[in-house]
């Protein structure tokens, strides 16, 4: 093959700067797509609100029990972020596989991990919008008594990353598992119930409380409840919940990232990036 000088537009090179721009490109695309489907955020918001009110009304025996709501509202907010990241992330990847754009995405100097990280950042936005609206409306609407202080930011951020780590894991599975939709809904229901949105985790039997340590967002909600009750962060650290949350978040996020890269490579070997 003869050689030819390349057009100036086709440049070589790599580096953190390039990969940051490539990840930002994915975030930008994800936000544009989310904006086109903003009505789905409104529908999700209304459904979550209605479900939460219905559950509280049912558990309260026909009344809303504010003391219960104080403990379960952080879980609702965490579920909003986690479920949105999982459902929209999984649906987005499936749509990209079937539309052929996942293949186009791979013809890029971007690594799969920088692309999926950019994608997950975009997925956080609609979930956070939903969580913020739900949090403000229910707190103000029902006059819920929280004692926020700066250290609440730590468990809030960790819970956010934990929820997105779960979304990452579901996205990674979507590349490999065709019938991921049903699995995602089962997982989301598990997070909803065991994550403390319906019944506060503190009310679970001891054996069940040990099991929920493995459920995404559950540990974050526990630490949030501790700190929002006015306790210092050291309380959550001394009972081991904060440490568990840290470990859980790191493991979940790393697993999602690694599994995504592995599944993309596997799909390349098996021709699985093509429309199914």
């Amino acid at each position, binding site marked *: *093959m*003869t*050689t*030819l000088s*390349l*057009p*100036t*537009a*086709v*440049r*070589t*090179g*790599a580096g953190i700067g*390039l990969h940051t*721009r*490539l990840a930002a*490109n994915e975030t*930008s*695309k994800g936000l*544009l*797509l989310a904006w*086109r*489907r903003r009505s789905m955020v409104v529908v999700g918001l209304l459904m979550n609100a209605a479900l939460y009110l219905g559950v509280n009304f049912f558990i309260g025996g026909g009344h809303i029990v504010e003391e219960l709501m104080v403990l379960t509202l952080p879980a609702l907010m965490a579920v909003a972020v986690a479920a949105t990241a999982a459902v929209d992330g999984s649906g987005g990847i499936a749509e990209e596989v*079937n*539309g*052929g*754009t996942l*293949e*186009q*995405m*791979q*013809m*890029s*100097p*971007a690594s799969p991990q920088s692309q999926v990280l950019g994608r997950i950042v975009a997925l956080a936005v609609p979930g956070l919008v939903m969580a913020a609206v739900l949090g403000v409306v229910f707190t103000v609407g029902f006059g819920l008594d929280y004692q926020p202080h700066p250290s609440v930011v730590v468990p809030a951020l960790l819970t956010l990353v934990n929820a997105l780590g779960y979304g990452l894991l579901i996205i990674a599975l979507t590349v490999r598992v065709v019938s991921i939709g049903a699995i995602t809904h089962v997982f989301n229901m598990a997070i909803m119930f065991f994550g403390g949105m319906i019944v506060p985790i503190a009310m679970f039997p001891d054996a069940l409380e040990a099991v929920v340590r493995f459920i995404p967002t559950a540990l974050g909600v526990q630490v949030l409840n501790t700190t929002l009750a006015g306790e210092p962060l050291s309380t959550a650290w001394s009972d081991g919940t904060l440490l568990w949350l840290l470990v859980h978040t790191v493991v979940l996020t790393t697993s999602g990232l690694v599994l995504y890269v592995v599944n993309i*490579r596997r799909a*390349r*070997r*098996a*021709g699985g*990036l*093509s*429309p199914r």
Partner: protein
Amino acid sequence: MSGLGKVYGRGETAFAAVKPTTLSVPWGQVIGLLGPNGAGKTTIIKMISGLITPSTGRITLGGHDVARDRSNAVRQIGAVLEGSRNVYWPLSAWENLMYFGRLKGLRGSEIKPRAKRLLTELGLWERRHETVGSFSRGMQQKVAVSAALITDPPIILLDEPTLGLDVEAARTFKDWLAHLASDEGKTILLTTHQLEVAQELSDRIAVIKDGVIIADLPTDELLSRHAENRFEVRVAGQFDGLIHALPEGANAEPDGDETRVRLRDADNDALYAFLAQLRAAGVSLVSVAQAQPSLEEVFIRLIHADDGATRPAEGKEPRT
């Protein structure tokens, strides 16, 4: 591509989609990769694109190995793949081009002038802010091509680019490809079932069957090789009085002030005998040429020549 092959599955279920194949495409050449469904065309294109990992062999794009230097190799290509949208329908044409430009590492300031030029040349500039989903199939395909070209890649891979397009859109597309090849010097690898498109655009044709390239020749040479025993004789004036002189299998049709006679399955003796009859009748001879078959005829002949068995490629050394 050197020794490139792809086997799906393992053990008894293993299936060789592409058997070890070597193909080199010089810069600026348009190569048509033809073959029946399932022959391995798309697998080859996707291996070149880095979308399917080859089981054997290696691919180099402009000196960059797809497996070892993927980051730089994929920047050499733009691809429109078969059976997929290729672009984001909920986004506008402009948003798509900005995204795909940045996807290859370019900055917005580098992408905008090129996006404007591409959309203007393809007649989409006025509708650049409309979502691609609202476009006709032809316009969607134009956006897909624009997205593939947004970084001005030297290599363009087109897998069935005219599939699903109406006649007019396909014609526009073909003209655009001819422009890319002749005016912009792009290296194009094209697969299509529309053989007249391949014949018109390709400098070279490779025919693949059951994962093996069975012919790989410059287009003219491929057609010439299959032109034996076919002649086209042009004579002045009308031919009505000499219809009885036509050999079996020949046909005559007027072409302006002349008559074109096509002799099929005629050897030199038959040709000379026919020309002698024309001379005796005082018909004025305009030209005699060996007639070339269409690419479609050659393709059918090649595909059915060795049904059940593959044979060494025409034009090159055996490669399996």
